[in-house]
């Protein structure tokens, strides 16, 4: 266990410092992980995330139409689809930032509660990473990460600081503990944002186009952190336009079109032999012609 953690940490640090060593280390993490994680295909009792018949409308616009989706513990599911198809709304329904009009959302078998304070603690168990980072600008990187544990979980500051420091090192930013968000690059901000979400020890991590606001050369470092998380067995729901990442990392791809699940399945099936017309149209738009 400890070997794996140390390994994962070094991998991260190297990954951030020198991009070239990323791959070999990432492979290391993977093998170590496989030796003691639940076997692929083994089904734990309840799905980690389960949506049943979720509908959501904004005024006259029906954004989500009867969405049912289940994500197992440790599974990585990528959600792709055209802009406006409801991907963000779907993610936001998972932690009730948006309340579905009908249908149910359950986390680890527990329906998301209606009661306000129970809802807050339910949200604390679902980490969310946003396209525009949404770091708290008046706090340092370290304070951003400590905020949840200290204010929500009421963990003593010294303990929260240790957690935050180890998370910073996990995302390769130990040297940025005292930096304010405005002093960080986009990639660094997003890595702090991921660490901030992880500090709550969530059961699930939601990523909403986490790399789409980044300069191309900064995307890799964030994807690497996400890859490592996936390898550690984190349950992840990832809205992304990074098809390569979706192909490589996800166990399943869900194609959302017009508020409905157009298609879902293994990445290789969806991406190389899409059955659905809307999937094909969407992939044709975002993939280089040679790869479609």
């Amino acid at each position, binding site marked *: 266990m400890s070997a794996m953690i140390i390994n994962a940490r070094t991998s991260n640090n190297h990954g951030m410092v020198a991009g070239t060593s990323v791959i070999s280390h990432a492979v290391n993490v993977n093998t170590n992980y496989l030796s003691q994680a639940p076997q692929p295909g083994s089904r734990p009792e309840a799905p980690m995330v389960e949506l049943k018949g979720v509908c959501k409308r904004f005024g006259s616009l029906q954004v989500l139409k009867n969405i049912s989706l289940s994500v197992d513990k440790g599974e990585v599911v990528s959600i792709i689809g055209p802009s406006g198809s409801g991907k963000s709304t779907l993610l936001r329904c998972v*932690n009730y*930032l948006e309340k579905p009009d009908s249908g149910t959302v359950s986390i680890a078998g527990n329906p998301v509660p209606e009661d*306000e*304070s129970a809802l*807050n*603690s*339910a*949200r*604390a*168990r*679902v*980490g*969310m990473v*946003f396209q*525009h980072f*949404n*770091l*708290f*600008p*008046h706090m340092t990187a370290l304070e951003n990460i400590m*905020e*949840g544990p200290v*204010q*929500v*979980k009421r963990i003593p500051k010294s303990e929260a600081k240790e957690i935050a420091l180890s998370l910073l090192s996990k995302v390769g930013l130990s040297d940025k503990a005292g930096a304010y968000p405005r002093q960080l690059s986009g990639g660094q901000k997003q890595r702090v*944002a991921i660490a*901030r*979400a992880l500090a*709550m020890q969530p059961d699930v991590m939601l990523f909403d186009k986490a790399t789409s606001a980044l300069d191309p050369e900064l995307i890799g470092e964030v994807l690497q952190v996400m890859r490592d998380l996936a390898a550690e067995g984190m349950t992840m729901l990832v809205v992304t336009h990074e098809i390569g990442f979706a192909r490589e990392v996800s166990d399943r791809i869900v194609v959302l079109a017009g508020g409905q699940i157009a298609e879902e399945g293994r990445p290789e099936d969806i991406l190389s032999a899409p059955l659905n017309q809307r999937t094909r149209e969407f992939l044709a738009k975002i993939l280089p012609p040679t790869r479609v």
Partner: protein
Amino acid sequence: MKESMVSAAVFIQNILPTLLRASGVTVKLTAFSIILGIAIGTAVALMRISRSKVLSGVATAYVTVLRGTPLMVQILIVYFALPQIGLRMDKFSSAVIALGINASAYIAEIIRAAIESIDPGQMEAARSLGMSYGLAMRRIIIPQTYRRLLPPLGNEFIALLKDTSLIAFIGGEELTRAGQHIISATFRPWPVYITVAAIYLCMTALFSFVVQFGERKLLQ
């Protein structure tokens, strides 16, 4: 000519201590009214942006009435009309209440605008960590408004400081009233009012300077 200027200078020197003492009352009035204004203004701002229709409706009505009627009338109501329904206060308290409540309407709008100018993503990020609405407001949203609040609040405080002169009309012994007393005894309105105006100017200039200094501090 030269003689009259010398005599004016001597005259001003003589009345200055009285006027400065009265300025103390003006400053005190301003300070207490600001505190009251911020306390009520913050509450009203939070009511206005709350999801409760009743709370935001009450807050909107409050702001509309106070901004839509003259401050002078509000002062007269507090000082002359309230005692008739059993709310008797000394002049200073009525002045602070009238000025503070009036300022609270403007301050509420300033605070509301500042809160609404914060990226909604901040609230979402806070909520996604499991924070309650109140905690997110207190820890994440409100602290980010300070820098944006300072310039408009500074203007509001300067306006409030000048508005304290209206208290002269209910006999409050502040700077303007002190000047009027001197004039009725000496019949020399020119040097008195010029001195009074100069003292107001010094106070507002000093205050602007403090606000700008604070702004620069907060910008760092």
